[in-house]
């Protein structure tokens, strides 16, 4: 930490509760909570509503804890990127020790509460997902390899598995395929974003694929990951794990995703202002995941 930052922390006001909320990355959490809820809702076992609510709360708290620890570890990186410079730590609104204590405390609370309310198998997967995000992605991979989000993406793929495990106490083919779907969705989603904020990552020294391999290679990789992602998404239908409502929605949505990925692959622009296909794919990828999980739940609850 620089002397300037240390001095600013001495004079800084105590962190506001809103800064602690910001530390949990609430916008990212919404997708995590939604996929976790869907994992729980499509499970064949009905959980008591209070316990189901607690399980989702624990997934949210665990995701928030992992985000807080990520921000604690990456405060120096965040300070160098326009997109993240106003976060509580780089902006000097919170001292690092508070963020660390908050993150560790929330991690223990979420895992223990999950174990007490549902079962210890779900709690173990939740603990693994927090550790994976913090240790494997944040500490080990992010600053070292362009494959950071390919492997690190697994951390974000755990919630449906945790939701399912909270209800049933075990894993199964359906939650494992949902895990695979988010795992394969993560690279196209993040690489689309990193293409148009490439200069930010380059300035911070993060080896994201567009920085290391260039835009052309990244665009090809986006397409190459979109194809198996679409196959996994649709496979639930022929495998008999979902009905025609999900099958139709998954096929249509995946077709749109691949079409947008083809658009991205055909684009040769280098300036962010001319990266409309990348921005479209990034925006659609968020809608895609919400819609596909929503369709799965609708298929289970409305049709079955």
């Amino acid at each position, binding site marked *: 930490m620089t002397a300037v930052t240390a001095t600013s922390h001495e004079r800084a006001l105590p962190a506001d*509760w809103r800064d602690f909320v910001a530390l949990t990355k609430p916008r990212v959490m919404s997708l995590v909570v939604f996929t976790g809820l869907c994992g729980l809702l499509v499970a064949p076992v009905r959980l008591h509503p209070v316990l189901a609510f*607690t399980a989702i709360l624990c997934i949210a708290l665990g995701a928030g804890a992992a985000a807080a620890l990520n921000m604690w570890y990456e405060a120096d990186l965040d300070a160098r990127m326009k997109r993240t410079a106003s976060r509580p730590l780089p902006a000097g609104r919170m001292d690092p020790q508070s963020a660390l204590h908050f993150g560790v405390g929330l991690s223990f609370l979420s895992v223990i509460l999950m174990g007490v309310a549902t079962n210890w198998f779900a709690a173990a997967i939740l603990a693994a997902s927090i550790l994976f995000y913090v240790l494997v992605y944040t500490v080990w991979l992010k600053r070292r390899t362009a494959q950071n989000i390919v492997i690190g993406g697994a951390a974000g793929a755990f919630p449906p598995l945790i939701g399912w495990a909270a209800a049933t106490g075990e894993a199964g083919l359906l939650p494992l395929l949902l895990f695979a779907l988010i795992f394969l969705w993560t690279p196209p989603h993040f690489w689309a974003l990193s293409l148009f904020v490439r200069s930010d990552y380059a300035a911070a020294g993060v080896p994201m694929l567009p920085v290391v391999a260039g835009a052309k290679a990244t665009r090809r990789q986006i397409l190459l990951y979109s194809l198996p992602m679409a196959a996994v998404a649709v496979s639930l239908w022929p495998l008999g794990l979902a009905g025609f409502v999900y099958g139709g929605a998954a096929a249509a949505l995946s077709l749109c995703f691949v079409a947008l990925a083809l658009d991205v692959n055909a684009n040769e622009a280098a300036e962010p202002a001319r990266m409309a296909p990348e921005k479209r794919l990034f925006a659609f990828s968020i809608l895609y995941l919400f819609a596909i999980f929503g369709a799965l739940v609708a298929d289970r609850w409305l049709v079955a």
Partner: protein
Amino acid sequence: MIPEDERTRAREVRARQRRTAVAMAFALAAFAALMYFITIARMSGG
């Protein structure tokens, strides 16, 4: 004599500490209520 901006700062510090204490009290109360309902749900075989 204490400069005005020091007083303003001290006031803001106290206000933030008060808000944090209220937020923590709410969180603890919510946690206690949740544990109560979890216990009931587990006892009813949920």
